[in-house]
């Protein structure tokens, strides 16, 4: 008996609505039915970029810790967050500020976190959202756990995981999508393919032509979307999230974008990446195309733009000022929240730590 093995690339749809050069007209998807409905998405992207630039500047002047910029990836996070409902749960990684900000995490909280203060992960907004995951890809399996809990409790909720292209090489990622399929979990996995895992290009991670096709082996739908097209991201995520919400199972979404920044503020990408590649990618960045579209549709004026820029700038100014005015936690704060109740032996250590150092930092 001969077994035929097919080596054909599986059919992976690539969804785009508004590319870098248009189209500037035509039908919009259900999630964003008219030009007016795109204005909040546009505003969220500009707000994210303003915040992100300030974080980099604060690091440069020694007032923020190591920071991973999301420059160029604003459409992915804004699209994902816009497609989620408040009671859904986001399990993000360390470059998903756009999604976090749009979900309601405040700029001050993010500044505190990146400034080296644990209070930044105590979100006032999306109370069930997980803290960002630093260990790459390990949160994918946790997201499956969140989704399983939603399913067991018969809640109409969806767990959404965001992770990078590098994370798709991790065992945990395969375990997560396989289990999500096997248990028919209400989970959406968004792979933010920004082309680079620190110095390692996407082509070194895998010879698979797409990352989305990894869904095929897990038996779940896989789809590619233009990650620099906020309309397409919102569309694809909305469909996947709503299908998951009604018991239709998980989806793997590969959002194709580009890391316009260094890996972090302590990285120098010029050592391993050509400037020409980055310049070419600037022509695909997500914000200008939507502005052009909105202007073309007659719903966005120069005055609107100026007002938005100044509003974002004012908000970030105020957030930075508030962040910088927040003093460090007292020494003993490192003992808080290690356990619900501090064991007596460690309580003695807390007292000793205050004796060792004093209260103030």
């Amino acid at each position: 008996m001969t077994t035929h093995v097919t080596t054909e690339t599986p059919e992976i749809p690539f969804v785009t609505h508004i590319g870098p050069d248009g189209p500037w007209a035509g039908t919009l998807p259900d999630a964003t039915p008219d030009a007016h409905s795109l204005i909040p998405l546009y505003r969220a992207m500009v707000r994210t970029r303003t915040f992100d630039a300030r974080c980099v500047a604060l690091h440069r002047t020694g007032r923020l810790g190591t920071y991973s910029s999301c420059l160029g990836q604003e459409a992915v996070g804004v699209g994902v967050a816009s497609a989620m409902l408040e009671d859904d749960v986001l399990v993000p990684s360390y470059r998903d500020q756009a999604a976090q900000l749009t979900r309601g995490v405040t700029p001050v909280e993010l500044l505190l976190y990146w400034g080296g203060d644990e209070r930044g992960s105590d979100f006032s907004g999306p109370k069930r959202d997980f803290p960002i995951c630093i260990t790459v890809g390990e949160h994918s399996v946790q997201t499956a756990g969140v989704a399983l809990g939603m399913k067991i409790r018969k809640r109409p909720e969806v767990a959404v995981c965001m992770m990078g292209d590098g994370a798709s090489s991790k065992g945990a990622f395969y375990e997560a999508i396989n289990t999500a399929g096997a248990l028919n979990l209400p989970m959406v996995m968004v792979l933010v393919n920004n082309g680079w895992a620190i110095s390692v290009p996407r082509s070194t991670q895998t010879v698979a032509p797409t990352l989305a096709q990894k869904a095929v082996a897990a038996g779940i739908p896989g789809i590619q979307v233009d990650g620099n097209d906020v309309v397409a991201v919102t569309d694809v995520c909305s469909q996947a999230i709503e299908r998951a919400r009604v018991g239709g199972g998980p989806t793997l979404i590969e959002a194709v974008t580009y890391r316009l920044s260094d890996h972090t503020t302590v990285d120098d990408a010029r050592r391993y990446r050509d400037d020409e590649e980055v310049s070419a990618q600037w022509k695909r960045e997500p914000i200008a195309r939507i502005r052009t579209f909105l202007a073309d549709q007659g719903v966005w004026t120069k005055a609107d733009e100026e007002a938005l820029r100044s509003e974002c700038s004012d908000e970030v100014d105020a957030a930075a000022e508030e962040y910088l005015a927040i003093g460090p936690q007292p020494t003993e704060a490192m003992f808080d929240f290690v356990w619900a109740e501090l064991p007596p032996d460690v309580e003695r250590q807390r007292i000793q730590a205050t004796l060792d150092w004093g209260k103030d930092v």
Partner: protein
Amino acid sequence: MSETTFVQAIAMALAREMENDDRVVVLGEDVARSGGVFRATDGLLERFGPDRVIDTPLAETVIGGLGVGLAGDGMRPAIEIQFAGFMYSALDQILNHASRMRNRTRGRLSCPMVLRTPTGGGIKPPEHHSDSPEAILAQIPGLTTVVPSSPSKAYGLTLAAIRDPDPVVILEPARLYRATRADITDDGVAMPLGMSFVEREGADVTIVAWGGMVSESLAAADDLATDGIEATVIDVATISPLDMQPILESVERTGRCVIAHEAARQSGFGAEIAARLAEEGLTSLLAPVARATGYDTIFPLARLENRYMPNRGRVVAAVHRVLEYA
């Protein structure tokens, strides 16, 4: 002879042994094209080519597994895990496989791999980048764990680790990478594994440390000397197998011992040394052993980092505690 940093000493040792031994290969995340996030593998790709210096996909399990497979079948891999906190998904490979290969096959196979990873705090990095997991590793029979404390030890112990017939984890204190320089001759001479080093001799108290706490302890000894207190400082260097002899001999003279480490106190490696002192040196002790360690908390983010890490002042305070005991 040029002044060499700790991280340059590692790159020098790797290059030296790649030159000496064709079986030595370097693998990890960002080790080739970028030369490592700390530059510990700088220049190796250019010199030895992409067959021997390999950027792996971003997956610690596979980096560990490749190491076991390579070493189990005759190669000499020196793998890099980017930060110790990312090692845990490769721990199954280390704990269940690398350390047991010789034993499980009754010596037919062995696993001469090296796993290098930055350890400890002091560089104000993001979360999970400051772990000191030596005590976890010390619980693994068959595994050697080394923590160099200076550029020359980094050079000599890295060479020894690559040449060792069994798996070795090298925990490299990230805060030392560029903090210290030394004249190092690239002579290919290894330092012995499994040996504790007496760094300074004094009659009043024995301070035992490793990694980043060695320089803090030596600084503490300087401070104590101005008050007329003379301390012996011992660099354990190899966590496992532990060389207890110099510690026992020193405590026999001083009668007092302080153990300094950055990791959390409970079940930290200091507990093993204290237990061995209780077992083998109890009659030498004139005072209870004291520890200057991290607290039993999560390693804090940058703003409180310095409040977690024991410094020279906390070592000095611990010395005063053991001296003041009647």
